[in-house]
């Protein structure tokens, strides 16, 4: 029915999709899994028309089509339920459902609200949601909003002839367990009306729901497995594409840490609404990994160490002393360096060049009475460019123009050159290609050898296991279990997952 043939998509520096074949039949639920950066979201964007493929063809019922935008894709029956919910929260449910398609209810320039409400109710019945369509969306729970989104996409049914294909992008990430089950049973029922493409990083869910599963890795479809033939281990291997390689995470370079003193000490620390009763010590040379799902409190702990959140209970000590004034300036002054997840937003300043970015957190060291010593700044930048083999033509290059890996190196160089010895790394390898990831792993080991302590929120569980000396598993802001991970005796994936969910 809907088919991609050898679809290619390239971005500067990244070959995001490599000759991808994909098809979905009527009433089918197809799962799509892969690691972050494997190309899932690019593939979805091609499917619903946000991106145009550079090569290959898209066919609907055998006819080749080319979507210039999502609206055209919708006209061919392809709808998307967004992961970041796309409902406008200050509008009512029915306004959201018919957003952009109000014309059908307009008579003489006036919207017939009764008719719209009736039509909206009809859509809501499809997803078994019994709410008043004139409710303001912000009053709904996340699960209800998810269903409204689904109902919104299902309006396509009336609007177009032919079959529907609905993409569900991580639909379960904000749902509770029971809600997930409800959603699944609903999706199964709706297969009489539409086909579904189900994208999730939760392998168990994908396996439970899907008829067939596409496994992606590095922009390629590496396997297609039928529901009955699916086997978690096999898929896992396909996804990662290798035995979890000891070399890859530089385990051979992992040295024991110095347990005699603590760089960061959390004693029964809690931040209201984020996490509570968390205790741990971070030692020099240690990689301490926080593991948990989104919203388990990992990021909030990093932000607390960096002085961006004020603990409500317990004590936080950085190098033996609590914060006097809880703010980032003091954290930086104490030697804490923060590598945030959103590199573009919080990592490097677009429009500032390499050396300016590198000295941003330590300008005081390169200035006398507020006047900068630019020569020294450049020398510093050149030294670190060499040391970390940052690929940039010169120190004047706008950091926004560097590749993700090199940007990340600049961020790390910023903190390392400033003498930081407590590093908070939030998804440091997100969006990097393999080579760049390995560079980051090398750097983490180097920093440990220099006596730095690292608190890591890893991009994947494998990464967490491979890199860390210590793993803390969190769930819903509560501490679950602590694992030690010396080389050669690492906990397994399943050990962790068991405590995470």
């Amino acid at each position: 029915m809907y088919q991609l043939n050898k679809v290619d998509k390239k971005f500067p520096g990244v070959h995001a999709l490599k000759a991808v074949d994909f098809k979905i039949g009527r009433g089918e639920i197809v799962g799509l899994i892969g690691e972050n950066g494997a190309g899932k979201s690019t593939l979805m964007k091609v499917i619903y028309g946000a991106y145009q493929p550079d090569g290959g063809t898209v066919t609907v019922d055998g006819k080749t089509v080319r979507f210039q935008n999502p609206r055209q894709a919708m006209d061919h029956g392809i709808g998307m339920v967004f992961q970041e919910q796309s409902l406008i929260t200050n509008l009512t449910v029915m306004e959201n459902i018919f957003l952009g398609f109000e014309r059908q209810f307009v008579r003489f320039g006036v919207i017939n609200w009764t008719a719209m409400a009736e039509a909206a109710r009809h859509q809501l019945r499809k997803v078994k949601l019994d709410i008043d369509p004139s409710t303001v969306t912000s009053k709904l729970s996340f699960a209800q909003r998810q269903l409204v989104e689904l109902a919104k996409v299902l309006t396509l049914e009336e609007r177009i002839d032919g079959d529907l294909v609905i993409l569900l992008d991580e639909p379960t990430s904000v749902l509770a367990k029971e809600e997930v089950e409800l959603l699944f049973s609903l999706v199964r029922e709706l297969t009489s009306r539409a086909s579904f493409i189900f994208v999730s990083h939760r392998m168990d869910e994908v396996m439970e729901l899907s008829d067939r599963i596409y496994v992606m890795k590095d922009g390629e479809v590496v396997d297609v497995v039928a529901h009955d033939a699916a086997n978690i281990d096999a898929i896992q291997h396909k996804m990662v594409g290798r035995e979890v390689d000891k070399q890859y995470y530089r385990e051979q370079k992992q040295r024991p840490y110095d347990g005699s003193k603590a760089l960061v000490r959390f004693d029964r620390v809690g931040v209201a609404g984020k996490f509570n009763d968390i205790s741990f010590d971070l030692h020099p040379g240690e990689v301490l990994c926080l593991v948990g799902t989104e919203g388990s409190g990992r990021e909030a702990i990093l932000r607390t160490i960096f002085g961006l959140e004020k603990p409500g209970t317990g004590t936080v000590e950085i190098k033996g002393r609590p914060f006097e004034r809880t703010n980032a300036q003091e954290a930086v002054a104490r030697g804490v360096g923060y590598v945030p997840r959103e590199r573009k937003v919080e990592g490097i300043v677009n429009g500032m060049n390499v050396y300016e970015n590198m000295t941003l957190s330590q300008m005081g060291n390169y200035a006398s009475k507020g006047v900068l010593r630019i020569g020294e700044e450049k020398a510093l930048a050149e030294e670190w460019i060499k040391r970390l083999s940052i690929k940039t033509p010169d120190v004047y290059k706008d950091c926004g123009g560097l590749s993700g890996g090199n940007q990340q190196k600049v961020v790390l160089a910023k903190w390392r050159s400033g003498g930081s010895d407590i590093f908070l790394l939030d998804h440091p390898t997100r969006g990097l290609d393999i080579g760049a990831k390995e560079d980051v792993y090398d750097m983490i080991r180097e920093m440990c050898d220099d006596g730095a302590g690292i608190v890591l929120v890893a991009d994947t569980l494998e990464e967490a296991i491979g890199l860390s000396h210590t793993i803390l598993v969190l769930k819903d802001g509560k501490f679950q279990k602590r694992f030690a991970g010396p080389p050669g005796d690492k906990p397994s994936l399943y050990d962790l997952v068991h405590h995470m969910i």
Partner: protein
Amino acid sequence: MAKTLTADKAGTGFSIRRETLVKWAPLLVLIVLCAFFAVMEPRFLSTRNFARILIAASPALMVAIGVTFVIIMGSIDLSMEGTVSVCAVAFAFCFLWLGGTLASWAWLALPFAMLVGAVLGFVNGLIHVKLRIPSFMASLAMGFVGTGLAMVMTGGDRIRIEDALFRSLLTERILGFPLMVYVAGVFLLVAWFIQTRTTLGRNFYAVGGGEDLAIASGLNVNRVRVLGFTVAGVFFAVGALLAVGRIGIAETATGNNFMFLSITAVVVGGTALWGGVGGVWNTLVGVLIVFVIGNGMVVIGLPGYVQDGVLGILVILAVILSTDRKSISFVK
């Protein structure tokens, strides 16, 4: 793979060309304008005429530089009209009170006016940061307060500054240009120094380029903001001094039109309103564009309303160009 590489090259090549175009467009516009006016009226291209343009532009340049710093931070300062008026009037009162000639202690009125500007800017920044009022609202309100204050101080009168020594800013010429042009030049260099060579200037860019990031780098963003408004206030004061030097009158109306002129100049010069991009040289070019148009239109004999239209179109063009530049950074 080879195919990918060539595609990449073409891609970056295009964006660099576009960036370069955007970067140099204001200067190009300035040169084209000058060439156009010169062709229409050869007398446009004379030292005396350039001196006239620069005399008119000097006060506005100072004000525009002040607001440039604030715009680089991603905020906006609309208090310039009030601040300029207050500084001009405060200067005039202080100057006359201390003797009325630069050859006496009355020279102290110069730093005093700058101090007044600094204080107004500081208060402005404090209101913006501490009360968490959007900068355009806080500064607009401060501007009104300033105009009102100047009104109360003068009671609606004009104060003439006749001191020949002070007026030599206008009357004394070196190489055909009056002293005030050189004074403006010196302050332009000071601004450039602040922009490129001081932690403060770097911080302006950091805050404008990404406030979250500036916080995550341990910068005291609030302090930077308040200082930014303070520096802007000082430059407004310098603008006020030059305005008084040019006309010889300090009054509530001294600040009139500076808001439109300076914001237009900053935008036309290519400094982006959302911060992080641009600088004092952009502003110099922008101010020159605005005043070359003002002068050139009269010189070639076009009516005034055409002037305003042309300026409006330039502002739109400038914004379109710099917006394109931003969206490029969104392209993956």
